[in-house]
């Protein structure tokens, strides 16, 4: 298990380092243009997703803090591009007990006693970057959309703030930014991943529980990972084509 993890991290590290020069080139090219003539980053080469490993998440909240810092998310406890939930599952109870104080921004103070016959774990949540996204389906004007490389993005200059997409998302990942009165949500740090960096949350996760994946890259370890692990998406019955894959997700997770 730890051998897998080392290999995984080594490969990921190599991928990151190799794309740094491409990132610099892209930066120079993308500065100040609407659509560059010959971009180093080609959308057709990528199809983004994420793998979240529940067995590794320690609920430190580093991802929540990093995301709010990187993406200038409002600090109040009603606006999260990503958040962490703590589940406490008692086998005799019909429903799990879930909490997420300030989205897990300050971690989780101990609440449960060890040895109480329940199981507890953390579940990071974010936009699932759905391939058949119900939120983009309902946008009346085309202010939110699926990019050709698989990220669900928001055009802040075009959004009306009607909140229909917020209602249509089954995962509760959207919110209205009170400062711009337009919708906002996790966009997989699109400004980073198109420069060869990883997302802010993955960069700052201390255990590697969150990993950015490129489903179109044959060398991405995600293919092997999906083949060898039992993975789930959230609310599969909604058929959203979610591209955030959870390893070791318990059935009680909503």
């Amino acid at each position: 298990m730890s051998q897998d993890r080392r290999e995984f991290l080594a490969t990921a590290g190599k991928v990151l380092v190799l794309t740094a020069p491409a990132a610099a080139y892209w930066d120079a090219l993308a500065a100040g243009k609407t659509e560059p003539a010959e971009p180093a980053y080609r959308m057709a080469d990528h199809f983004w997703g994420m793998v979240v490993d529940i067995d590794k998440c320690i609920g430190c909240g580093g991802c929540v803090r990093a995301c709010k810092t990187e993406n200038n998310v409002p600090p109040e406890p009603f606006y999260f591009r990503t958040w962490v939930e703590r589940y406490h599952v008692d086998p005799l109870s019909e429903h799990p007990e879930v909490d997420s104080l300030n989205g897990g921004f300050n971690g989780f103070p101990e609440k449960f006693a060890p040895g109480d016959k329940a199981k507890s774990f953390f579940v990071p949540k974010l936009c699932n970057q759905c391939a058949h996204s119900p939120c983009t389906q309902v946008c009346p004007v085309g202010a939110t959309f699926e990019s050709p490389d698989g990220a669900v993005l928001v055009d802040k200059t075009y959004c009306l703030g009607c909140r229909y997409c917020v209602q249509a998302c089954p995962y509760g990942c959207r919110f209205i930014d009170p400062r711009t009165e337009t919708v906002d949500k996790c966009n997989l740090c699109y400004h980073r991943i198109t420069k060869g960096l990883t997302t802010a949350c993955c960069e700052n996760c201390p255990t590697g529980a969150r990993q950015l994946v490129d489903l179109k890259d044959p060398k991405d370890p995600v293919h092997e990972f999906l083949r060898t692990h039992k993975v789930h998406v959230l609310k599969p019955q909604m058929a959203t084509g979610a591209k955030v894959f959870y390893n070791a997700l318990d059935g009680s997770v909503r």
Partner: protein
Amino acid sequence: MEEGLLHAVQGYMYPNEIELQWSILIVLYPFITGLVAGAFILASLERVFNVAAVKPTYRLALLSALAFMIVAPLPLQLHLGHPERSIEMYLTPHTSSAMAMFGFVYLWYLMAVLVLEIWLDYRKDIVLMARSETGWKKTLYKALSLGVDNISEESLRIDDKLGRFITIIGIPSAFLLHGYVGFIFGSIKANPWWSSPAMPIVFLFSAIVSGISLIMLMYMALCVLKGAPVDMPCVDTIARYLFYAFLIDFSIELMDLIHRIYEADESFQTLDFMVHTRLYTSQILIQLVFGTIVPLGFLALTQLVKLSEGARKGIYTLAGCLTLMGIFAMRWNVVIGGQLFSKSFLGYTTYKMNFATKEGLLPAIILLLLPFVILFVLVKVLPPWEEPHEEAKVAAA
């Protein structure tokens, strides 16, 4: 923003769900468009289905529909984060979005059905007033007549034929108008309180019920104000159609309820709990008992037992008011109720309605009163007291 909201959360809500997205303004919107559709259906009863008894309310129904139709987009504009961008819905409508397509349904209904039909029905009176009035009123009526002075029998006959044709198209248009609003909610698979194929039908029939009640109440009130006798065969007929429409509406909602209780899917427990706690007053008491069962009972009484004119007028008034209250509660329960529970099915939040803010109670009250102000103006410009379209001449010709 509202730290107090956090304390009002019971159980677990996804953090982004704690603050409600759609306010009382979004409750107002289906209520107002429902009144439009319902008033129009009542008007079409006479025009298309030749229910002659309701003729005295024909013009009033059309003008009311127009007054409410004009106000309908206002709660939406107030609610939008960027109302100045709302034209984008017409410039780049996303065809997969019910909200976008509704913009065109609204426009079609307003211009091609309502405005046109009113104009055709009133054209003779407009031209007569253009001839007889003076000063700015003369200019107004001349403009409304589009500068055409011809009110020959032939031209009026053509108007009547065209008007009838428009009403025939208008009926499915009215169905589309409010059925679409139902679909805006009913097509959201993420929300089990809303997601249902029955939503468009439920919305439509509750719209018809509310529109008929409104016109019935307004007609009786206007008769009292003018000191004129109430045309009893007219209101009796209206009340009868109200009763029928209400029965259908109630049946469909009841079927949906029975289906939910019986199948008891994953969302049932959380919704059931919500209805019995946070939504108890508005759903059980206001919508179901006093807004549906009581008026239905009273209306049934008038259909089964011969009552005096005074008793009937009293019952119609009471039933009409209770019905309007019940249908408003229904919109509230759909819109607000659909946001009170968490999509995790593990918790509930509260709706904090402010008073004098952009989306507060005060603008809602103003927007509900505004159509009556507009109607007052419309009634002055296009008095509904004259006989509408000349049926007799058509039959003779």
